[in-house]
């Protein structure tokens, strides 16, 4: 690992990574007697691609749910932009600039692609319900302005041709892309991706990887990513957190993690003789 000073570090491919934007401090999350996350701390730095990996049931998705405010941890603190974040409802977390996609696609199936993407813009729209009812000045102006942003993202992710198609009719790979569009259009500070390549073939994975890198490069978005495909993780991410049974067993560059004995044991198993 390079110098982890307050000002950030320079990645292997020469990108300058900024200071800490979010820090998880001693997070413990319990469901009744089950401890999903045990005393985990790590930080997320501005502009980096941070991966969370681990075997099934390690608590990765729970971690993402803690970041997006869906679960409130029993112990520990989430520090966001230098201040401690009190427990808050997910929609308020979204308003602070944290967007995410889901492991099992969670799109609005009855709506068109365009409507799905426009829903992602709702935190940038605040015309009153009366304005909207009569389609007056602000409501109409806002709709057009946000449509412009939505179309930019639709262009960026190359889904122009399906913008008026109801999402329920799309194939799996495209749905994943639409979900990314919906998260991206909110112009988030941090983008959480829960297994963006799950269930995809090689070409679709390549496309998705390209989009993840492009998003990071063009918009400077910080990305936190859960993924099982080790090739993808090692190629894309700048730093990796490894979890196993709710505990953090490794944290560092892909190179460091790959050579970490504990990580190797967790993935390959150890003999119990």
């Amino acid at each position, binding site marked *: 690992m390079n110098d982890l000073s307050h000002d950030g570090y320079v990645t292997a491919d020469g990108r300058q990574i900024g200071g800490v934007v979010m820090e998880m401090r001693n997070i413990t999350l319990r469901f009744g007697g089950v401890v999903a996350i045990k005393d985990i701390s790590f930080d997320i730095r501005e502009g980096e691609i941070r991966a969370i990996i681990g075997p099934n049931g390690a608590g990765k998705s729970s971690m993402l749910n803690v970041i997006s405010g869906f679960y409130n941890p029993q112990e520990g603190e989430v520090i966001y932009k230098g201040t401690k974040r009190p427990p808050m409802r997910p929609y308020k977390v*979204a308003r602070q600039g944290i967007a995410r996609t889901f492991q099992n696609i969670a799109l609005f199936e*009855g709506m068109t692609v365009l409507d799905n993407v426009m829903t992602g813009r709702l935190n940038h729209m605040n015309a009153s319900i009366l304005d909207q009812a009569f389609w007056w000045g602000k409501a109409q102006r806002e709709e057009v302005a946000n449509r412009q942003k939505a179309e930019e993202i639709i262009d960026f992710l190359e889904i122009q041709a399906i913008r008026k198609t109801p999402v329920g009719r799309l194939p799996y790979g495209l749905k994943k892309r639409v979900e990314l569009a919906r998260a991206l259009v909110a112009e988030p500070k941090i983008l959480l991706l829960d297994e963006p390549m799950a269930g995809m073939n090689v070409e679709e994975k390549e496309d998705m990887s390209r989009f993840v890198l492009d998003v990071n490069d063009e918009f400077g978005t910080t990305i936190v990513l859960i993924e099982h495909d080790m090739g993808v993780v090692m190629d894309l991410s700048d730093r990796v957190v490894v979890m196993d049974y709710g505990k953090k067993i490794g944290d560092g560059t892909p190179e460091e993690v790959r050579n970490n004995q504990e990580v190797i044991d967790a993935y390959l198993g150890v003999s119990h003789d």
Partner: protein
Amino acid sequence: MFYREAGDFKTTYAEDNQTFPIAFDRYRYYAVLLIGVGVVPFVINDYWASAILIPFLIYAIAAMGLNILTGYCGQVSLGTGGFMAVGAYTSYKLMTAFPWLDMISITLLSGFMTAMVGLAFGLPSLRIKGFYLAVATLAAQFFLIWMFNKVPWFFNYSASGQISAPERSLFGIAVTGPNAEAWVKYLFCFGFVFVLAWIARNLTRGSIGRQWMAIRDMDIAAEIIGVNPLKAKLTAFAVSSFYVGIAGALLFTVYLGAVEVGSAYGIVKSFLVLFMIIIGGLGSIFGSFAGAAFMVLLPVLLRNILTGVMGWDTALATHFEFVIVGALIMFFLIVEPHGLARLWALLKDKLRLWPFPH
């Protein structure tokens, strides 16, 4: 040939976003409006007004209201009849307490009052969903009807327990009461339907409409991308109740004139409006109209065919009417579970390619 987008270029997002993107649809809409305002009032008679047109218009408003709540926001409600009663009793109390108030204000105020009541009964929706919410709204239905029956203040201590609409006028022309003419009542309802349909369309295509649909399709994801579920659900309840309240008020003041709450606004009415939106199409403004037309027109049509054309006994015809309407509802739902609105959309898709199907 005539029904297509080709050659109709949209150069702004506002144009792309319009209600009727296809020119033919636009002209058809204007034609319907023109006939509705310019022709029908001159040829209308009492039979057409009271048997067909006025109930169709009023139920279209109620169906739009319930469609906003159930079709767009996904919250099932069985309290429509009760909320219509709130609109009716509010308008009755306003008409008798403030005789100088004009009918438009009275009807709008009845809508707002019902919106308040709807908000209160919408609160459980934050914790419960689906069938359980339906049962909670059912409680609203029974409670409201019970209240209007038992608290004499609501029916001004009349001996019969009924309420009847006094004569009130708008611009000097009687709108309610026995002296109101058919064309006046018709135009009064038409005006409300026109404005409310336009507002419903605006709401459902804008940000708030997308929030409702997001809650309907996947509420957890909606909350995580920033929809405040409390706000989205309660606005849906309020807007929906506003519509339903106006429909209930019009049903009493303009259409029925005198009302006994249990029979006019009972659970049967809740189901009637629910059938309208299921048959018409959930999540569609057009579907609300189609469903209202289906449920209002079909019995009348059948009655006329059975007694008029086939010469059946009236009592027999009345009973068979129920059987046939029920069978037809089932037939339509089996053929097209997504309602008349979907059939209409399929027809338009076909028309787009006609006469060359490739």
